[in-house]
């Protein structure tokens, strides 16, 4: 982190996180991190035509179907979030 950021970071961190979805922070939970990873991966599969073809061939589905299912899975790729402990 550059020195300039070090002083301004705290005030702007929240803003930055809102702006750049998917960036991590110190208090990131394992679940959040994993969900981000999966969403990034799924978006990358849909975004790269070769990867979509690759999956479609392996799975015997149409490319349109693969894209659809991948986008659907982005909603909750790693199941529901863990329960937060009260204490």
């Amino acid at each position, binding site marked *: 982190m550059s020195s300039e950021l070090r002083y301004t970071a705290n005030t702007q961190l929240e803003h930055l996180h809102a702006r750049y979805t998917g960036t991590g922070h110190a208090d990131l939970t394992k679940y959040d991190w994993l969900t981000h990873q999966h969403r990034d991966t799924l978006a990358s599969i849909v975004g790269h035509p070769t990867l979509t073809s690759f999956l479609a061939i392996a799975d015997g589905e*149409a490319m349109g179907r693969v894209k659809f299912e991948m986008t659907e899975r982005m909603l909750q790729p790693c199941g529901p979030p863990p329960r937060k402990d009260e204490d």
Partner: protein
Amino acid sequence: MHLYNLTLQPPTAVTQAIVGNFSGARQQEIIISHGTRLELLRPDVQTGKVSTVIASDVFGSIRSLAAFRLTGGTKDYAIVGSDSGRIVILDYDPKTSSFVKLHQETFGKSGARRIVPGQYLATDPKGRSVMISAMEKAKLVYILNRDAAANLTISSPLEAHKNSAIIHHIVGLDVGFENPMFAALEVDYSESDQDPTGEAFNNAEKMLTYYELDLGLNHVVRKWSEPTDTRANLLVQVPGGQVASSDRFDGPSGVLVCCEDHIIYRHMDAPQHRVPIPRRKHPLEDPSRGLIIVAAVMHKMKGAFFFLLQSEEGDLYKVTIEHEDEEVKALKIKYFDTVPVASSLCILKSGFLFVAAEFGNHFLYQFQKLGDDDYEPEFSSTAYPSFGMEDPKSALPSAYFRPRPLENLVIADEMESLDPILDSKVLNVLPNSDAPQIFTACGRGARSTFRTLRHGLEVEESVSSDLPGIPNAVWTTKRREDDAFDSYIILSFVNGTLVLSIGETIEEVQDTGFLSSAPTLAVQQIGADALLQVHPHGIRHVLSDRRVNEWRVPEGKTIVSATTNKRQVVVALSSAELVYFELDLDGQLNEYQDRKAMGSTVLALSIGEVPEGRQRTPYLAVGCEDQTVRIISLDPESTLETISLQALTAPPSAICIADMLDASINKSQPTMFVNIGLQNGVLLRTVLDPINGQLTDTRTRFLGTRPIKLIRVQIQRNPAILALSSRSWLNYTHQNLMHFTPLIFENFDYAWSFSAELSPEGLIGIAGSVLRIFQIPKLGTKLKQDSIPLSYTPRKFITHPSNHYFYMIEGDHRVMGEDAVSKRLDELRRQGKTIDDEVVNLPPDVFGRPKAPAGTWASCIRIIDPIEAKTVALIPLEGNEAAFSLAIVPFAVKGGELHLVVGTAADTFIAPRSCSSGFLRTYKFTNDGAGLEFQHKTETDDVPLALMAFQGRLVAGVGKALRIYDIGKKKLLRKVENKTFSSAIVTLSTQGSRILVGDMQESVSFAVYKPPENRLLVFADDSQPRWVTAMAMVDYNTVVVGDRFGNVFINRLDPKVSDQVDDDPTGAGILHEKGILMGAPHKTKLLCHFHIGDIITSIHKVSLVAGGREVLLYTCLHGTIGILVPFISKEDVDFISTLEQHMRTEQSSLVGRDQLSWRGYYTPVKAVVDGDLCETYARLPGTKQSSIAGELDRTVGEVLKKLEQLRVTSSGF
């Protein structure tokens, strides 16, 4: 090691296609994206054939394309969304025949990221704005307009972001001239991310949201947002807006929301209409499986519109909307036809449908009718309560149709596509071929093919007839200068000449004025209406009234060589003298007063055509026995003076001067080339300077083993040169660049142009005593494809060490095997159900096979004879078993007898990978390899994905385990195992006792087998994770690997480590060494790295040219075939790398991606030069070419020569 990457065959998959008037002419064109390449296609309305106008690499990944036209304009522009973080507007400039970047606006980081727009594009139908969207959150709207000079302008972006929304699709609404509106299909995940009970997830709604661009306020607002079907995946624009001239409405506006099993018509403040997507009435159809629409196209005609939607099975549905002004009365759907599943559909106004298939060949169909009055059942929303929306949560009763062969469409053209290439082999098995062929396993499902690719142009023969003797030359000629077609065919034999007249039939004629008792040296239509024949003893000038003027050779001499054009004749006598004739204005042939003594026997002569509007061509090229070529002036000022001289390495056998266009040398006018064929089969091509007659820029090429003959011909009304040696080659101009390609046909002894009514663009050739008339239909293609159909997706194939057969395994997921199908049908019959045999027996290559649940497989083993191009034997696998790997193993305990081992698994699931049992099936070869005899089957605990022969035994990668098996009586016997691999072993290679193991996720490991202790030890691996897809050993310590993200890289093991491991007899040393980075004790070093942009499916180390260097040839999923060529010298590396650097700054990518960052997508480029970028040097404007060449201290010709030499010597292409 430094490599030069060169694409031999660019990707053929089409990821998206758009239609529009891109050239601004009346004709519609199609722009297709090949993922990393843009191509403009022009369908010919008359012939229904598609031709490529231009294609250019974009050095980036194209994710979306859209066409738009400014209000009142006549020309369409293309907008490109890519991974460059930029929006680019392209214009096709027909003058220069290139794409021009009009605007390039940066909005984000590069890369196909989740929140950087580029994935979806939607344009306003009136061309006023465009929305570009990411997969999540980000949507930007740009306003498009004209400035005072009528240039296209683009505004700064307006944000229409919505946090934590996943975007499924966007589309521009047709609202006429009201404020532009866009519809988006979004799902919000913020609640599901917070709710541990999963209830929010289950209740998550998919919203159809309208965004309005307020042109007055310059602002985007969310206008309207309503939940729609949760399984919606696609939006289609519905026409709307008022017609300017009347108060009628074009349509109701709004969108079609394509959902699983349903289509919904939806618009703000309007009732919804819903119809089911009709399903196939097939006995094996699974009614619980949803059906989605994967491609859609809307077509507007005068006063009407309709939609064609395509389901994932390939069925097209015609959807129509009945409306009164803006009120929708009914939504109707019916089955239209079945075509291959498309990635994009385009309807042309001229009545064609372009289907860019997601896999396999693309098609152009012509509409025969629009399915208006047939008996196909139609489903209307009025037939259901509340237009099908009574209970939006529950499904409408299923609708069915009966699939049938095409009724509304007919195939007009087919574009060959290799996509996907799943495996390949490179070897020379075809007889009479001096270059290896590439055999590829292509396609998916029932449309799969096995293709043989040969370098060369396809030749289409139309006539072949036997002649009485063996002629040594053939000509055709017109009678008059302005005739459209040729009238005579003249054949020269050793002792005579035969003249045939071309009419309804081709027959011999006598009274033509030609001398028939002597052989002929040249034939020419000369002047306005005269003919000329050169024979060894004279020249006959046959006038139109059949009078003959004959010039006779002095006693004791003969003519040995002659060259002619419309006004000039030069002959060489046996006394090594040149005699020059020229036609005067009265049509008389006059001999020049002097003869030129050459001092050495003349072997070949050539003059070019008379340039338009001139009297004569000023240069004559003379090839002499003393291994020289001289350029002699024919200018009246200096007639027969020698201008320049070039020494050769062998006596010339033919010379041909031709004016041809080559944009890399001169963009505006043809260049005069002197082609010199030598007796040793080498062709020299030099450029003749039109001003001073000097020969420059010599390029050489080896054509074959026989002395070369050169013939000037016409190909598509442009001059071209046929070069005949032990192979026939054609040198022609295509898309303004010069190509040199062999013809895939019998060798010719002589050939000439042939133009008749039935074949206006033909060629005529003689081969032995056979006369052949032929055409070259597909100019510009470099590889000729011959294919044989397969049943299922090919997975792998191998060659046999002693016979020429190929053994291939095929398998398809979610497809029932033949045995399961017949069992199921029998069961249904027993239950008393009637089976519609016609539907069951529909050809699967068109209709596909019914989809079965995950874990169902159909698979077979096929034996292919590549020479005969046919299937020799087919062994289906039963019991839901699918084949994944195969190897031919000479088992040492059986005395080296060859066995085929096929790795299969039953009830396999892909993710996570599981199977009820894996098997290693062992077969013996019967019938000289044309058959297989089953021996036994060995169970394994996981899917065997890789098999290989190793020291008389079998090495198998079974899931995570690497094992060595030996053959037993009833089973294969496991001898040794290593289970340290992390995910799954996918590739294996070996040399000596070393085994290279490619892991699905963890790159390549080096293992060694130590027989004394029976140990299988991993001693080196890679320090980076790599998702290996293909691998080949370059040498004992070096491996080239392709990964799943489109990279190719080379890893090398330290030779010291290699020696140390080889010297350790028992492997105890390795066993006790400490691992590094939680892996093996030694790491390989990365030598080269390059991003290709297409997933490599196979790599081979081969030599593509007879006697040429070995190169690495790779094939990729989307149909790319390329090579990596090692540089020979340090100077070459420096030169080409500097050129590449200059090209990077000069040639900016069409999508705005930085070439260097594209080639270093995941890891920076290392020691690989991008040859595709360097080769665009030929297309640069002349000033830029010379400035770059100046920086390199070379001439433009030298740079071009170097590039051509790199391509030709390594690939022959």
